[in-house]
Each structure stands twice: as structure tokens, then as C-alpha cells.
């Protein structure tokens, strides 16, 4: 039988500092909820309030049909198990004794453990992969092992709802997955309600059905992971640029951190850059330039190309063409428009064939119209020319018209700094 939680108008403060502000939250019985948010957003404090480790200043918390605050600790512990963040243990109980303590809420003062308690402790240790540690002192096992022992103790409680505060903090990736998969399967098979505070947004995206995103003691967004963990929400809450990509292996999605938000990095503000790239040659510049705040566009790119995916994930404007097709007039026109809007065009070290020669021609055209054109090349252009010399000829003309050949990205960044300085004099830094 599952148990849910309902929080209404919850306030909590340490002294004068408000940590939680008028917070409402409903956790349905049998759901798998992840609470995420930056440090200091109040997610651990929220967990401590709903686990009764802290008493709220104001507000109502219901555990199932009961008022949590009027239940005795024992009554709470018979339904709810908690895995705290800090699992440090100083006294040398054996792992087995430690897990057996999960049965405390079900025992009278003078009662000692019976067969059922031993069986549950063993079950909990086997599914958390800690049974082999049973006779070791809990002070002498590794942090990750101790974390799993604490989870085993919580599961030995036969909880209907389990709260975990960063349960994966001390675990290596294998055990992170193992633990969350275990919780997921308990959630599916026995309807155990799981509420976990997680740092790792990808784990939250991967495992939860419902995500609560917190900021400044309030719930910023909640709901399905796809909707809550959008790049806009993450930018607003974390001040971070991220790329969201589908994860073909899990059917869920991945969140790739790219760097601090544009708002924080002003170098490139107001400068438009167009990238001619493809096949992954543009990823580094796409990432760095968007991070630095440049307004980036690119093309023409074939749909499905590595650079195309990254550009889409970053929200960059792309002149796109059907997969594996040559550049059509329509997309060439779109690309020309993007180039006209830009101050500077960068050619990455892509190979040129008949299919994308148009990109090169368009670049030359833009150069002649007075745009800056940078060509990244370490003198290997001949090897990338699959047009029987046509591309090489255009490159020669580009050089003649003042196009700049650059070997490393650092040159590109300093050049762009100069461009910005010429556009907006005296606003450097």
C-alpha cells in the first residue's frame, strides 16, 4: 500500500532567514518524485520538513490521511523511511546490526528481534548488495558501501514512502544506477513512493516520473521531466546554458552543461557570427561562441549532421537541408540571409565536395560585400578539396579578397574581440 504526502503553505526559516516560502506540494501515492535545484534552493530543507527532522514555522503536512506533525516519531517511522545526506557513523556496530535497527519502529521496549525481522534485514541487504558485508564493522567500510547499508536499513523498515537526500552522492556510477534502478523497481512492483533530492539532473531526468525544480525556497516548476527540465528553466534557475538532447539508449533525454549563461558572459553581446561547418568540426566553436554571448547562426547543414544536432540543442538558427542532399536554392537563399545578418563568417575545417561547394561560394560573396571571413585551416585544404580544384580556386580568391586563414581557435576569439571593439568602442570587458 502506498502513501502520499501533501504539503500546504509551508514556511520554514533558520532564524530570520526564510528558507521555504509558502510552499505547496502534492506527492501522489506510488509516484517517483525527484527534487532538484541549485545549492541553497531549499530542497534539503524541504525534505527535512516532510521527514519531520525539522519543524515548519507555518503550514500543513499530511502523510497519507494523517497530520504528520501530530504523529509520534514511531508512527511516522512505521510508514516512512529516510536516507539522510550524511551517513557518517562513529560507533562500530556491524553492518548486520545496523540494518537490523531498521526494525526499531516495530518493536516494543522489551521485545527482541524475531524471525521476521531477521528475514527482512537479510532481504534488504541482499537487494542492496550489502549481505557480504554483514559482519564487518560499519566504521570500516567505504563511504559508498555505508550509503548502501543506510539504504538497506531504510528498506528493512518496510516503508510505504522513502525519502532520500542525495542518495547517490558517495556512489560510483555503477552503484548510482544500481540504487536508482532498485528504487525504481520497488516503486513499480510494490508501489513504494520514492522522493529523492538529486544533484544530478540527468539521473533525475532518467528515473523520475515527476520533477520538482526549486529556486529560492519556492517551487519554480514541477511536472514531467521533459517539461520541467527544459533549457529555459535550467537557465533561469541555475544560470547555466545547457543542451538538451534525446538519449537514444534510454528513450529519455540528456542534459549537457555548456557553461555559464549569456547574461553572465558579455564578451560577444551584439556581435553576430555565422559558422560554415559540418560533421562535428563546428561543435567547439558553437559551444564556446554561444557561451561567450555571441549571436550564432550556421549553415547550410544537413539535417541529422552532428553540428546540426548541436546547433539545434543550443537553439542556434540554422539554414538546413534534407539529409545527405546537395544544397538546394532554397536553403542557399536562407543561408545568404543569415550571412548578411552576421558581422563575421567562420569557415571550419570541413571537406568540400560538389554538394556543399555553394557554402564556399556564398562565403566569398559575403566577403566581397564587406563581411569578415575567417578560414580555419592548418594548410591541409588540398586534402579536403573533393571538387577537382574548384574549392581550391575559390579559397585562393578568398585570400586575395582579404579572407584570413587561422590555425587555432584562440586567434578566432581575439579577432572577434577586435570586431566587437570596432563595433562598440570602449565597451570591452
Amino acid at each position, binding site marked *: 500500500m502506498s502513501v502520499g504526502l501533501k504539503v500546504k503553505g509551508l514556511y520554514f526559516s533558520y532564524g530570520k532567514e526564510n528558507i521555504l516560502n509558502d510552499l505547496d506540494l502534492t506527492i501522489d501515492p506510488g509516484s517517483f518524485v525527484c527534487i532538484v535545484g541549485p545549492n541553497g534552493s531549499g530542497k534539503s530543507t524541504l525534505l527535512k520538513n516532510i*521527514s519531520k527532522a525539522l519543524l515548519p514555522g507555518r503550514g500543513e503536512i499530511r502523510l497519507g490521511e494523517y497530520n504528520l506533525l501530530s504523529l509520534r516519531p514511531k508512527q511516522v517511522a512505521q510508514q516512512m523511511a529516510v536516507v539522510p545526506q550524511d551517513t557518517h557513523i562513529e560507533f*562500530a*556496530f556491524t553492518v*548486520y546490526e545496523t540494518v537490523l*535497527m*531498521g526494525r526499531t519502529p516495530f*518493536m516494543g*521496549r522489551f521485545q527482541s528481534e524475531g524471525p521476521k525481522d531477521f528475514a527482512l534485514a537479510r532481504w534488504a541487504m541482499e537487494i542492496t548488495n550489502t549481505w557480504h558485508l554483514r559482519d564487518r564493522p560499519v566504521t570500516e567500510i567505504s563511504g559508498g558501501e555505508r550509503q548502501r547499508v543506510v539504504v538497506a536499513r531504510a528498506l528493512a523498515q518496510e516503508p510505504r514512502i522513502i525519502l532520500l537526500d542525495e542518495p547517490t552522492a558517495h556512489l560510483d556510477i555503477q552503484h548510482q544506477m544500481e540504487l536508482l534502478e532498485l528504487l525504481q523497481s520497488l516503486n513499480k512492483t510494490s508501489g513504494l513512493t520514492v522522493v529523492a533530492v538529486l544533484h544530478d539532473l540527468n539521473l533525475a531526468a532518467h528515473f523520475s516520473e515527476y520533477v520538482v525544480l526549486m529556486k529560492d525556497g519556492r517551487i519554480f516548476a514541477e511536472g514531467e521531466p521533459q517539461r520541467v527540465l527544459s533549457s529555459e528553466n535550467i537557465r533561469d534557475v541555475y544560470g547555466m546554458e545547457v543542451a538538451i538532447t534525446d538519449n537514444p539508449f534510454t528513450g529519455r533525454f540528456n542534459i549537457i552543461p555548456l557553461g555559464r549563461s549569456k547574461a553572465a558572459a558579455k564578451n560577444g553581446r551584439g556581435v553576430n557570427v555565422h559558422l560554415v561547418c559540418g560533421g562535428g568540426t563546428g561543435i567547439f566553436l558553437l559551444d564556446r561562441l554561444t557561451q561567450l554571448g555571441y549571436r550564432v547562426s550556421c549553415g547550410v547543414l544537413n539535417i541529422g549532421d552532428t553540428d546540426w544536432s548541436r546547433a539545434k540543442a543550443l537553439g542556434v538558427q540554422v539554414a538546413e537541408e534534407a539529409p545527405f542532399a546537395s544544397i538546394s536554392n532554397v536553403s542557399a537563399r536562407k543561408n545568404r540571409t543569415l550571412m548578411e545578418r552576421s558581422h563575421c563568417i567562420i569557415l571550419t575545417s570541413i571537406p568540400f565536395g560538389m554538394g556543399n561547394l555553394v557554402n564556399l561560394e556564398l562565403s566569398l560573396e559575403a566577403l566581397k560585400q564587406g563581411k569578415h571571413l575567417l578560414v580555419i585551416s592548418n594548410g591541409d585544404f588540398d586534402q579536403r578539396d573533393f571538387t577537382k580544384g574548384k574549392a581550391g580556386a575559390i579559397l585562393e580568391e578568398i585570400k586575395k579578397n582579404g579572407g584570413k586563414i587561422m590555425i587555432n581557435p584562440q586567434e578566432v576569439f581575439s579577432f572577434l574581440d577586435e570586431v566587437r571593439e570596432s563595433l562598440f568602442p570602449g565597451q570591452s570587458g
Partner: protein
Amino acid sequence: MTVQGKHQVFKYPFGLIALLLLLFFVCLAAITIGPADISLSQSGRTLLAQAPGISAFVSLDDVSVNRQAIILQVRLPRVLLAALVGIALATVGAAFQGLLKNPMADPYIIGISSGAALGATVAIITGLSAIAGYFAVPWLAFIGALVSTFTVYNIARVGHRIPVYTLLLAGVALSAFMSAIMSFLMVMSSKEMHQVVFWLLGSFSARNWGHVQAAAPLIIVGVLLLNCFARDLNVMLFGDETAQHLGIDAEKVKKVLLVLGAFTAAAAVSVSGTIGFVGLIVPHAVRLVIGPDHRVLLPASAMVGGILMVITDTVARTLLGSVEIPVGVITAILGGPFFIYLLKKKKMTGE
């Protein structure tokens, strides 16, 4: 699985029964040892003769009335008192070490000893003990212990909670303060200084059934009740929050145990003086041997504390013949080096 269960349940009762028997034997031996020439059988029979129903079957022909009086009126109450005080200090020490999650805690850590000492000093220096009889010192010591514990408790309290850190700091601070007052009183009346110092060192000399009757009920009830909280203490070793999550009302248990510990230790201190090290060393050593499970640790510490106290008291009154050494001196002489040994050993095993 069942092996595991048996391991938990059946391993220790034999050990505890063995310790209990050892305590009885040590008490009997302590009653026997002394200037008056009494044999083990004589003291055993003298005790048995007191038991209703058995007395008819015990022959006391070879035990003079004088010796019976020495056994029953002088040595028995003294040995019983020593055992009770040892049991009380070791139990409270074990409970406080668990409660405060600090293996360096002892029964005196929350101001009991300094409060008792100040009370006793006042009783001695004001001449109250000369006027009101030999119970003035224990009474004032008892009151002093409780008042100081109560004060520490209230200084340490933050809202409804009693954080361990503030409790320890308040204990240290108040102890220092009261020791200063006591030193001042002692300097002002150097005449009684010897008497005060002797009390501070702790002793069972000249204790009688009156002391036993006064201290025994509090100590026995206190120790039994403390044992009822063994499981709570186990869980609380994992931290107050974890204890809460496992269904233990940590703050309530803390308060109950502090009150129980304070009464029990105050009862012990008031009849014996501030005997050091027993409440610190015994639980520590027992924990090293049997582990931290309070269901075993508390009773085992009690027995070992009782045994140790009876032995050291016997050494204290017999070692130098007619001159009696304060028992606190013996426990400190034994306890100090033993404690250093434990610390060294702990350092070497890198715990």
C-alpha cells in the same frame, strides 16, 4: 540467518551471568579480607544466616559475635556501597557516552561532580556536618549535583532541543565556575581543607547502612530504568535525526536519560565523593571488548564497574595497613595509565 539471530541473542547472557557471579564472589572476598582474621567460609555463612529460611541450616558456631558484627555492620555495607557506586557510575558513564556520542564523556560531564563537590564543601566548611550529623555532607552534595545539572541543562537548551555541543560546553563552563567558588571557600577556611580534599578524592571509609539505604533505592531504580533505554541509545548513536527517522523521540529520550543519569550519579557521588575514572574507563574498556550494543554494554559495564570499585576499595583500605588511601586515588592511579594505553592502542589501529 538463524545463526545470525542466535549470535545476537545468545552470545552474551552467559557472559553477563558470569560477570554477575564474579561480582558476588568479589564482594564476598572483599568482606573476608581485612585486619580481622575471617575466612571465606565464615563470611559466606554469616551472610547466608541472614537469609530467612536458610538460617536454620547454617552453623555459625566458629564465628564470634564480634566478627559477625564486623562482617554485617562494617564490611558488608561498605562493600555493598562500593558495588552500588561502581555500578551507578559505570552505567551512567556508558549511557552518557552513548547519549552524547562522545567516548570521552563520563557521569560528571554535565556538572554533577563539581556541583556535588561545592555542596559538600559548603556542608563541611559551614560546620553543618558537625551540627546536623554525618548526613549533612551527602545531602548537600546531592542537592548541589542536581542544581548544577539542572543549570547546565537549561544553559544548554535551545528551544526544545538540547544540542550535544552546547551541553558539553555548558558542563565544562559551569564546572570551572563552581570549582573556582569551591577553591575560594577552601582558601578562606584552610582549617577544613584536609577534610574537603579527602571528600573530593572519594572514599568508602566509615560508611554504614544508613548510606546504603539512602543511595541504594535511587541507584537501583536509576540503573534499571537506564537499561530500559538500551535500544534507544543504540539508535541514537547514529545521530538524533536518524534516531527520529527510526521512530525514536530523540529529544525526549535525551531529556529522560539526562534526568535519570543525573539522579543516579548524584546518589552515588553524594555517598562516596567524586571518584574519578570509573565512569569513563569502564564503559570504554567494555565497549572495546564487546562492541557498542547498549543492550549488553550497559549491564556489562555495571558489573565491571561494581567489581572494579569493590576491588579498588579493598586495596584502598588494606594496602597500607592502618592508613587508608582514598579510593579515588587508586582508581586514578590505575585509570590514568590504562586510559593512556587505550588511547595509544586506538591511535595505532587508526580508528
